[in-house]
């Protein structure tokens, strides 16, 4: 049976610490301003407290990756396990993928004049190591799952604030944040 790898973002556990994002920089040394994994605070319409609930997002390794279909240089390939791999040696820096991706996953690197994006650490996965961000997450809020076997009943594919885009099929799955009982000051 094949596997379909995906990120699980559990906002109930996520503390927005950005460890995942820095773990990515630590592994790949993106230049200043180039960020492959970003930690997005949820707007107050979605979670009533500012900067207190987050989605940690990188590439969603979609079922129908628009970066891949729109690339004139064939710089993207999708593996059997779902990982969408960008090959910098083929990239011509045209940024078609940057414009096409509704999630902002491919990022242009002006220094290299090429695009880069989350590779789901496929080199690490091929050596049975977790992706750098997943290994780094101190709370288990960011996990790697196999969508073919994962019990998705408590997760959603299109939570508030995240474009579901069934046509593209982003593989990331989400659990919503929780709220505590508030006892505010009376005077």
């Amino acid at each position, binding site marked *: 049976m094949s596997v379909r790898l995906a990120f699980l973002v559990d906002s109930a556990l996520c503390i927005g610490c950005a460890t995942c994002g820095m773990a990515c920089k*630590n592994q790949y040394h993106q230049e200043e301003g180039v960020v492959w994994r970003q930690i997005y605070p949820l707007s107050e319409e979605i979670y009533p407290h500012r900067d207190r609930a987050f989605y940690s997002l990188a590439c969603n390794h979609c079922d129908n990756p628009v970066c891949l279909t729109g690339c004139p240089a064939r710089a993207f390939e999708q593996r059997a396990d779902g990982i969408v791999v960008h090959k*910098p040696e083929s990239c011509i820096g045209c940024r078609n993928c940057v414009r096409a991706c509704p999630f902002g996953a491919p990022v242009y690197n002006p220094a290299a004049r090429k695009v880069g994006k989350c590779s789901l650490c496929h080199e690490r996965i*091929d050596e049975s190591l977790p992706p750098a961000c997943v290994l780094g997450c101190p709370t288990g809020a960011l996990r790697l799952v196999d969508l073919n076997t994962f019990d998705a009943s408590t997760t959603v594919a299109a939570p508030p604030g995240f474009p579901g885009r069934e046509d593209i099929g982003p593989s990331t799955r989400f659990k919503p944040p929780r709220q505590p009982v508030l006892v505010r000051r009376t005077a």
Partner: protein
Amino acid sequence: MTMDERTDFFEQMLAKGVSRRGFLKGLAAAGVLAALPGGVLQAAQAAGPEPFGPTVFLGKDAYQTFRNACPRNCYDTCGIVSHVKEGVLHYVEGAPESGFTQGGLCVKGYSYPRTVYSPDRIKYPMRQVERGSGNWQRISWDDALDTISRKFLDIKETDGSMLGLGLTKYSGNFGITHYGVEGMLASLGYTTRFVGTPCWPAGIDAQNYDMGDMWCNDPEDMASSRYIIIWGANPAYCSVHSMKYIYEAQRRGAKVVVIDPVFTQTAAKADEFWEVKPGADGALALGMARHLIDSGLVDTDWVQQNSIGYGDFEAYLKREVTPEWAAEQAGLPVEAVKRVAEEFATAKPATIWIGYGMQRHVNGGQNVRAVDALVALTGNVGRPGGGARYGHLYTWGFNYHAYSQSPPEGSVGFVGETGPKGEFDPDAGSEAQTYTDRAFNINRIAQEILDASEPPVRALWIANKNVVSQDFDRAKILKAFAKVDLIVTVDLFFNQTVEQSDIVLPTVTPFEDWTVNVSYWHYWLHLNEQAIAPMFEAKSDIEIAAMLSTRMNALEPGSCTFPTDVDPKEWMAKEFNDGIHSLFGIDSWEDLRQGSRKATLASPAAWNDLGFKTPSGKYEFVSQAAAENGHPALPTHLPGRESYAPMRLLTPHHKYGLHSQFQNLDWMLDYSSEPFVYVNPVAAKAKGIVDGDWVRVFNKVGEEKVRARVTGNVPADTLLMYEAWFGAKNAYNVNRLVDDESSDMGKYKTGAPGVAIHDQFADIEKATA
């Protein structure tokens, strides 16, 4: 997901036939590195760490690994596995065998490769032509040490002692060999020491009065707590690896209550959040205790067997405290106060994590005593999953070889009252000598220098400390610095203290040095190996001491006793002893190359044998030692500081830095680009401030211009600014707004009272453009 679960996941994947080496085999080595400019290898050439470019994971076997430790004064003090290829640090990971970190680090720890290869690092000794001018000239180590040595000898000739030389050092690197800085000063004679700690002293004294020492349960045992109150701590920012134990307790059915002046990230993960009035923590705890007496929920067996003075405490509470009064003091509804008190008392084991924030008040030590009392009278002290958790020094029993240096023969020093030189002082309690160092309060560095005479502070050595960023009343610090002839700072970056120094000496990152590290929270021990050669002309603290000694003795033989030839690896090894070996189950430090070790504990609970180190051997609700030191004998209510401006100002820790470290890195700026003052929407509206506006925050101490971030996370009467140093291009500094008012306790065990960092007040207005 634990490490085991992660591994299992990959085992399952492999069983399903996922290719170990996908179709991209060979891409990394052959393609990417060759194709992209500015690969990391360039950084290795000591010509200069150019901003390094993209790289990829080259395979498990492509790297040499070394053991390191993050030494930046953090609860989590993580063990690190450094991955090095051809002398270049490529990436870091957490020590996989550490149950506390489970292979991970934090946002700060993962930025270390950038610290090492940052183009902003101080590369050579340099002299500033005029302080604050930025006119730096490269000088040789010989030149630097000659200038410094001549000044030191001049001090001795002028004053007849070395007391005109001051040292201020704290927690920039808690590696044990870094106490060689104190050793260096001792080897020169009796000097002036800025003693105490800005961090946690009031609470240390409080726990010593109550229990005879500061000692906390293993944080990993929070998973077994049935009820957790996190009081004035924000582990989601400041101890991210503790969060999983709190989550595990919740998963098992425990309730988590966060008590804090602001709605922190930790509060957002709790079951219940209480927005307490700052400084009213003690009153609140006393009110809860009174309610437990009224409800018959005091653990009278525990109290009778294990404490003294409970009768007096109960009489005080019945006389002076009601839940209604406490609720009013704290600004909270009395029903909630009573309900949580009952829940806490009936859910054994129940624990309170006492944060350091709570004791940064004029009544901070007394507040901690009141909270301790609440834990004790519910019988939760000494119990796994229970405890009044604050911190510990249980694992710090090293030799302090680097620290322990002797003054040159015939040295003249200070005569008078003396005490411990900080919480880690290994000589505390030893016999008084004829002469001692002159002890000044580390938290009032500016006032102490301004007041000093006979002799004045003529030269200042600053290491492991960013005084101008982190010490209190910045304007006064600059005035005090003007009185000092020579200021020498040892550091990694051109921070705000270096800006005000005459000479700067470049030091090493942990990856370029040997030392050993433990935590004041968890019970793990980490080796720190030299993983890469020191960058540029950087030296460790003890190498600098040896070089200084060489120069001093060349100019005046016998003027410095510090060994002139030190090997950092040997000196690391000299810190180990049988006690450490046995506590951690190792034969020698070399065993730590296989991985970090955890102390073998009879129980995860501190005070598990209920043998307290107080004079009575019991938990002391009435402390004679407290009374003798001028405090109430009982944990009574002590009012907070009178307000001196319209709004409360809080300046706690952010998640992107450890004091003034890490936030300056360009990698960190990608996630946190600028500082803010956080303002409640009601307050913002009243002041005509819109989100993102530039505002002026001001009080009697000074002012700071910063952009406003409007949020209900802070109460309407409170302003919040995270302490941080955003790099040389940003002058942001919260200590323009924080004075040096002392907290009540700290002198007993650390040599100086703490500082009331959170008893500050300010006003805010829209800034004119």
